[in-house]
Each structure stands twice: as structure tokens, then as C-alpha cells.
């Protein structure tokens, strides 16, 4: 007969702190001692890569930073990887932020990939950081209607003096928009994809991917699925970084959660089947 101290009860009611501790070890240990599991490339990542590859050299690509600092560990490796690809293909990069933390990461991406941001000789010709536009979806709508509505870039330079911005009259001039977000992509589809026909790529957290999938491949031409997507893209652009390093930790963590779920079910099912 099942009692409170029965092993089945203990299996079914493990203290959450034990789970937290083991998860911490499972994530931390592989980061210190990686075991180098191979990472396959998923179709949506391949779609993203092929789309950027297929753009004519010098195409205008917008990186829209709708990310907060919280999702940086997941989204920034994606940014570094695709910005490297854009640089390799000589595309022109317009970085704009719809979250107040975005411009800092946009600046960091330019420094990591190009070596410098505002002081780079190609700043203003090949890439620009327009900074934060407050107002959420209203700001997106305004920017889509007239990208030159932003008067000064993140560093205080006049946008009208920047060569990269000259040919732009509306979002129709964007050949691709890469949305880096931890909250939603729908608003970008509504304001850029539908009215102006801009192809969209989602560089999003793993949690948000299920929200992006309904738009793929019609309105969202590809997406990067969290840290795994970043790791896949790092392989494609041959720029191994922190995302690839984190895959072992992700594997260990997933395995631990599965083990706990199975253990909990063993305890639950055995208890349920015992005669009361």
C-alpha cells in the first residue's frame, strides 16, 4: 500500500531545488568541458541562408532589433552570424531598433563583424545604425512609410548625409528585413510584409518560433530557431562561436528534463496502479 514515504511518492514529488541544481550542473559542465556533438542544419535555416545568398550583391537589408537585453544570449549569436553573411555578400545593412536596448546590440554587431561602427570608413555607405525609434507598431508603420523620418542616427549624424539612406523612399526598397525579436514577428508582417511586400526572416528565440511558423514560407522566408538556429548559421558561414559552444549544454539540459519527466511518470503510474 502506498504511503507518504513510499519511493513512488518520492519519485513523483522531487523537490524543485534538486531539479534546479542538477540543471545548473548540466548546463555549466559542458560549457567548461564541451564534448562536440555534431549539429545538423534545419530546413528553415537553410532557407534563410539561401535567400541571403540569392540576393544581388549590394542589396539593402534591414536588421530590425526588437530584442531586449534578456534575449541577447539567444539572439545576439544569430545577429553575429547573419551580419557576417551579409558582410561577406557585400549587402548594405541598415540597422534600426524598436526596443530601447536594440541600438546597443546593433552597435556591438558592427564592431564584432566590421571591427568598428561609427568610425569605420564604410559607415554611412555600406552600413548604418539608425538607433531606437520609440512607439512600437506605430513607429514601424511610420518607418515603413518613410525610412528617412529618422533624422539622426544612433551616433548623432544627420541621416540625410548618409549615402546608404539616399535611394530609400519606402519599405518597398528593402530587399529583406531580418527581425531579431523575443516577443513577436506579426507586427513586422503587418507593417512591412503585407503592405510593402518586404520578405522577412525571423531571428527569434526558440519560444517564439511556434508563432513564426504560421507565416513560413509565404510571408516569412526563413527563420533561425533560437540558439540552435544560431549554431546552424555559424556552421553555414564558417564562423564558429558561442552558439555552437552552447549546443552541448542545450543537449545535456534537454536530456535532464526528459529524464525527470520519465522519472516522475514512473512514480505516478506505479502509484496509480497499486491497489489502494
Amino acid at each position, binding site marked *: 500500500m502506498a504511503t507518504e514515504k513510499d519511493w513512488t511518492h518520492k519519485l513523483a514529488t522531487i523537490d*524543485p531545488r534538486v531539479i534546479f541544481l542538477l540543471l545548473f550542473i548540466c548546463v555549466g559542465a559542458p560549457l567548461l568541458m564541451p564534448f562536440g556533438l555534431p549539429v545538423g542544419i534545419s530546413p528553415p535555416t537553410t532557407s534563410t541562408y539561401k535567400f541571403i545568398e540569392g540576393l544581388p550583391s549590394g542589396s539593402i537589408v534591414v536588421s530590425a532589433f526588437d530584442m*531586449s537585453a*534578456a*534575449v541577447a544570449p539567444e539572439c545576439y549569436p544569430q545577429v553575429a552570424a547573419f551580419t557576417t553573411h551579409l558582410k561577406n555578400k557585400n549587402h548594405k545593412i541598415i540597422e534600426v531598433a524598436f526596443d530601447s536596448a536594440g541600438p546597443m546590440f546593433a552597435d556591438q554587431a558592427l564592431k564584432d563583424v566590421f571591427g568598428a561602427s561609427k568610425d569605420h570608413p564604410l559607415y554611412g555607405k555600406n552600413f548604418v545604425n539608425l538607433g531606437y525609434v520609440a512607439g*512600437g*507598431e*506605430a513607429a514601424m508603420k511610420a518607418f515603413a512609410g518613410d525610412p528617412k523620418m529618422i533624422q539622426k542616427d544612433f551616433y548623432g549624424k544627420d541621416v540625410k548625409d548618409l549615402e546608404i539612406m539616399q535611394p530609400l523612399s519606402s519599405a518597398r526598397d528593402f530587399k529583406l528585413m531580418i527581425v531579431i525579436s*523575443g*516577443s*513577436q514577428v*506579426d*507586427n513586422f508582417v503587418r507593417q512591412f510584409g*503585407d*503592405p510593402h511586400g518586404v520578405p522577412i526572416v525571423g531571428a527569434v*528565440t526558440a*519560444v*517564439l518560433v*511556434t*508563432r513564426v511558423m504560421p507565416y513560413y514560407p509565404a510571408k516569412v522566408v526563413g527563420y533561425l530557431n533560437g540558439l540552435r538556429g544560431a549554431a546552424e548559421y555559424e556552421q553555414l558561414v564558417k564562423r564558429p562561436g558561442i552558439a555552437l559552444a552552447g549546443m552541448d549544454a542545450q543537449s545535456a539540459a534537454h536530456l535532464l528534463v526528459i529524464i525527470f519527466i520519465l522519472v516522475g511518470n514512473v512514480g505516478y503510474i506505479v502509484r496509480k496502479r497499486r491497489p489502494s
Partner: protein
Amino acid sequence: MLGEVILLEFAKGVVHSFTLLVISSVVMIILLYASRKGKVPKIRKLAAIDAIDEAIGRATEMGRPLHFTPGIGDFYGYDAPMTIAGISVLGHVARRVAQYNTPLIVTFAAPEIEPVITDVVKQAYLAAGRPERFNPDGIRFISTRQFAYTAGVVGILHREKVAANLMIGYFAGESIIIAEAGFLAGAIQIGATANTYQIPFFVVACDHVLVSEELYAAGAYLSKDPVQLAAITGQDWVRLIVAAFLVAGCVLATFGISLIADFFKM
């Protein structure tokens, strides 16, 4: 100028959307007017809403506070309807806690909704005949930063040992953190959001959940207002119409007839 308005040239690719908007609006408005003539539709029970009274009762018995949050939404953008729906439910909750003298804590992340929340709660206490029980210190703006707000709410759940945690509104990544913190604090929890990818987190961590558009029905369900109930029925009719379009489109497309598919490209 008048001539330009009368001609009404459509923007590219929106004719199908406008047509569906007009059909949906007409259906809902017809049902709204019908309800004014006394035809009150019935809607099914929403267990999560019925559980609000249970949550309030629990908090009252234990002498511990009830925590309500409409999430991180504000009054502009995609999250506005969810925030408004949450505040509608807050009005009902505030009236009940005023009757039972249950301590109420309301937290939120958007400063522009503070006047509305304060007014809603104060009016609820007034309507319950207990204006003296209204405590302005219970209305707490935490922070506009998502995770600063989360840290504040988690701290409140643990320090104040809340007995009931109601999360009804717009939630993003903080949903699982707040819900699990509420569980660890021993609170009974009701979660509701229309942010689809956060619903699973509420399902695993809360005792009761309102799924997607049930959040919008909550205010009508609680008010028992015939007009609002009619709007909910209107939603269901529109859903049937959309489903009919989808099924018809799939069947026709299977036989190579692209009539409906072409309509959706107009």
C-alpha cells in the same frame, strides 16, 4: 478632396481582408442590436472565470492577499485589447474583494494604465459600498522593463505570501517565471493571455487557464451584459464563416478550382 474620398481606391492586396472585415462587423453588429431587443444568447461555462470566486474565497479565509496583474501590456499596439480585457476582469475582482475585505495587490508594467487601474479599483470599492477599504498602496507600478517588473512581482508573491495569483492580460517571457513563483509560494493561480506562445506556460503552471479568445469573453461573461454576450456569440458566428471559407477553399483547391485561393490574393 471629396472626389478623392468617394473614389476610394484600395491599397494593394487588401480587398479580401476588407471584405472579411465588413462581413464580420455586420454579423456582430446585427447580433448586438438583436440583444438590445431582449434576445440574450447563452455561452458555455468558463471554468477559469468561475474559479475566481474560489480564489478570492481562499485568500479571504487565509487572511492573505490576492495578487492581480494585467501583465506588461499598455493601451497602444497589439497588446492593448488584452490589457483592456484584463482591466475589465479586475473591476469584477475588485468588487468581490471589497465585499470580503480581502487585501488586494495590483501590479503592472505600463505607467499610462495606472490612472485607469486606480479608477477602476476605487470605483469597484465604491460600488461595493466599501470605499474606506480602498488601499492605494495596493496599486503598484513596478517598472517598464519586462524583467525588472518580473523580479518585482516574484518578490511580492514570496514576501507578501499571496494566497491567490490572477494573471489576466498580456504576458510574454515572464509568464512562466511569475506562474512558477506563484506555485512555489503556494498560491492558487488563474492565468489568461491571448499571446499564443505563452499559453502553454500557463497551462503547465496554473490551476485554471483561459485560452486565447476566452480572455476577451471574460469581461462579458462576468458582467452578464446581454450586449456583451451577443458580441461573444458574434465571434463564434464569424469563426464559423471563416472556417467555411477555409474548408471550401481546401476542397475546391483539391479539385483544381482556385476561386477562393484567388480571392484571398486580391
